[in-house]
């Protein structure tokens, strides 16, 4: 069998690893636009902040491809797929044949369409080269403007503040992290950032980036100007669906896949930031461009490519951030639109908890400060457990696994793995 993977990040590399582990003889080829070995994009802001060195970005041993007998085309771009011939064309005109293909092309950073956005000194933080370029010029930078108050924008802002820069975040929405958390949690988090010296401008957008040669200032649509030498666009990502679209695969926001992560062509699979999978909390297709989802999808796709049918449980929006010691985790639906949801929340100082339930099933949560119960809640969300018997305990500081033990015992089919069964072996109450 010839397995070909486009993409050398979380989904692609994990898929390659599963393929090799389960089939020692097959041909595996991996094509990646980036030349470096698998590194964690999520750590790029840690690199900029100086809290880690570049060597810590790398996820696999240097000889990973060789050790796993994976043929690579690094620094090459796949430009088209001939689905009838099962053949791909790379930008250097190399032709690559496949029996089963995985598209794990990931996502690219969104940019802004404003005057001056093409100037030197305007960056997105998506790949290792971006981070290197930013770090290189940091000595000359005093003021930074970050466009975007979402998770990416704030992580960029945090990293640069840690480096001692004067940082202003420009947020179009009414509050920061509007996709990730509710206004209450956002207020606490924004307060922490403001206390560290980060300036946050809400309900406003950048209109122009000005400067002769180097950047000098950003002009906002309310007329205000902010002096800066560096602009970071932290507006989130969009899936790299180009090749899938061109080859006639079904594409919506991302590449449409079924529960086996198979695209509209049975020999082509998709995984990671480019795939649109079923969202567990929402019950509808969604691109959840997140590291854990990409890893899980890469693995499941690989099993299905091998013909060992495995169902992907679905993705879930989930994020964890820590700004100056204030931890926050959000998962699933955090701002329910339609009625019928029950909301349980509690605030104490910097500690904030919110749970969104629908028919006694938790569909979302926001935790700020004390995040210790996040994992336990996450499994209740993922497995759609009826929590009516423990609902009153959810907001307690001491909510923990012991509280859900009766449910683990009761719903054997939902907690069928050995590790869950092990915890109830001695249970006789």
């Amino acid at each position: 069998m010839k397995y070909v993977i486009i993409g050398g990040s979380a989904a692609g590399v994990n898929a390659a690893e599963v393929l090799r582990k389960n089939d020692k003889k097959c041909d595996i080829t991996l094509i990646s636009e980036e030349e470096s070995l698998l590194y964690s994009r999520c750590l790029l802001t840690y690199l900029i902040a100086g809290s880690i060195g570049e060597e810590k970005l790398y996820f696999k041993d240097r000889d990973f491809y060789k050790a796993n007998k994976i043929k690579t085309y690094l620094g090459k771009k796949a430009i088209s797929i001939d689905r009838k011939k099962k053949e791909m064309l790379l930008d250097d005109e190399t032709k690559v044949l496949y029996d089963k293909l995985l598209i794990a092309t990931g996502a690219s950073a969104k940019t802004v369409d404003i005057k001056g956005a093409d100037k030197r000194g305007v960056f997105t933080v998506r790949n290792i080269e971006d981070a290197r370029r930013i770090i290189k010029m940091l000595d000359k930078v005093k003021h930074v403007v970050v466009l975007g108050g979402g998770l990416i924008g704030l992580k960029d802002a945090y990293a640069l503040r840690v480096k001692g820069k004067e940082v202003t975040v420009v947020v179009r929405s009414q509050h920061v992290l509007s996709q990730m958390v509710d206004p209450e949690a956002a207020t606490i988090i924004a307060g922490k950032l403001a206390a560290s010296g980060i300036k946050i401008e809400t309900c406003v957008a950048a209109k122009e980036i000005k400067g002769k040669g180097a950047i000098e200032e950003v002009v906002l649509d309310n007329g205000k100007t902010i002096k800066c030498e560096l602009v970071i666009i932290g507006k989130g990502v969009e899936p790299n669906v180009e090749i899938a679209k061109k080859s006639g695969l079904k594409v919506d926001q991302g590449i449409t896949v079924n529960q086996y992560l198979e695209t509209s062509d049975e020999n082509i699979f998709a995984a990671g930031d480019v795939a649109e999978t079923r969202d567990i909390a929402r019950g509808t297709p969604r691109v959840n461009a997140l590291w854990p989802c990409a890893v899980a999808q890469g693995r499941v796709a690989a099993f299905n490519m091998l013909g060992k049918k495995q169902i992907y449980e679905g993705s879930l929006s989930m994020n964890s951030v820590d700004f100056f010691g204030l931890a926050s985790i959000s998962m699933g639906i955090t701002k329910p639109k339609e009625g019928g949801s029950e909301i349980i929340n509690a605030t104490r100082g910097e500690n904030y908890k919110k749970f969104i339930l629908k028919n006694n099933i938790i569909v979302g949560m926001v935790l700020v400060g004390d995040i210790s119960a996040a994992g336990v809640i996450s499994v209740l969300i993922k497995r759609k457990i009826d929590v009516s018997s423990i609902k009153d305990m959810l907001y307690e500081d001491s909510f923990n696994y012991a509280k859900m033990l009766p449910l683990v015992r009761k719903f054997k089919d939902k907690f069928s793995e050995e590790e869950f069964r092990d915890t109830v072996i001695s249970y006789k109450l």
Partner: protein
Amino acid sequence: MKTKTKNIKIYCDITKCIGCRSCEMACAVEHSKSKNIYNALKEKPLPKKRVKAESSGKIIISLHCQHCQDAPCITACMSGALSKDEKTGATIQDKEKCVGCWMCVMACPFGAIVRDVENHIAVKCDLCPDRDDYACVVACPTGALFAGTEEEFRKRIEEKKAKEK
């Protein structure tokens, strides 16, 4: 590092656990610099426990990392700090790689990974790599804690049940 046998983890007999937290104390001491309770108490930052005695009404359980077969913490770890020890099946952590993003805290269904806020890293049960036995099991005054394989623990519980009859 001591080599330990395959598929070992710490089990808790819920009917015996009284929530005395001896396991928590022993765990923290074992993970201190001095490994001595008197000196450990003077360490700054204080050593961290990786086990939690938890309760809910009548249920009391000393909860440890379950070293899941398909571990969600490993899938979630974005820094490559968590991995499987292929030889023992244990879920292990490379502290040097941990950046304290808390993705594992978010993913662990048992809440068995905790934050070491001072050192800004996640900590979890490492099955006491510096000793042949397990600090929490040794410290447990009621015999609720047991280190072994699932089969061994099941046998132990069944034997206990047989005696009670």
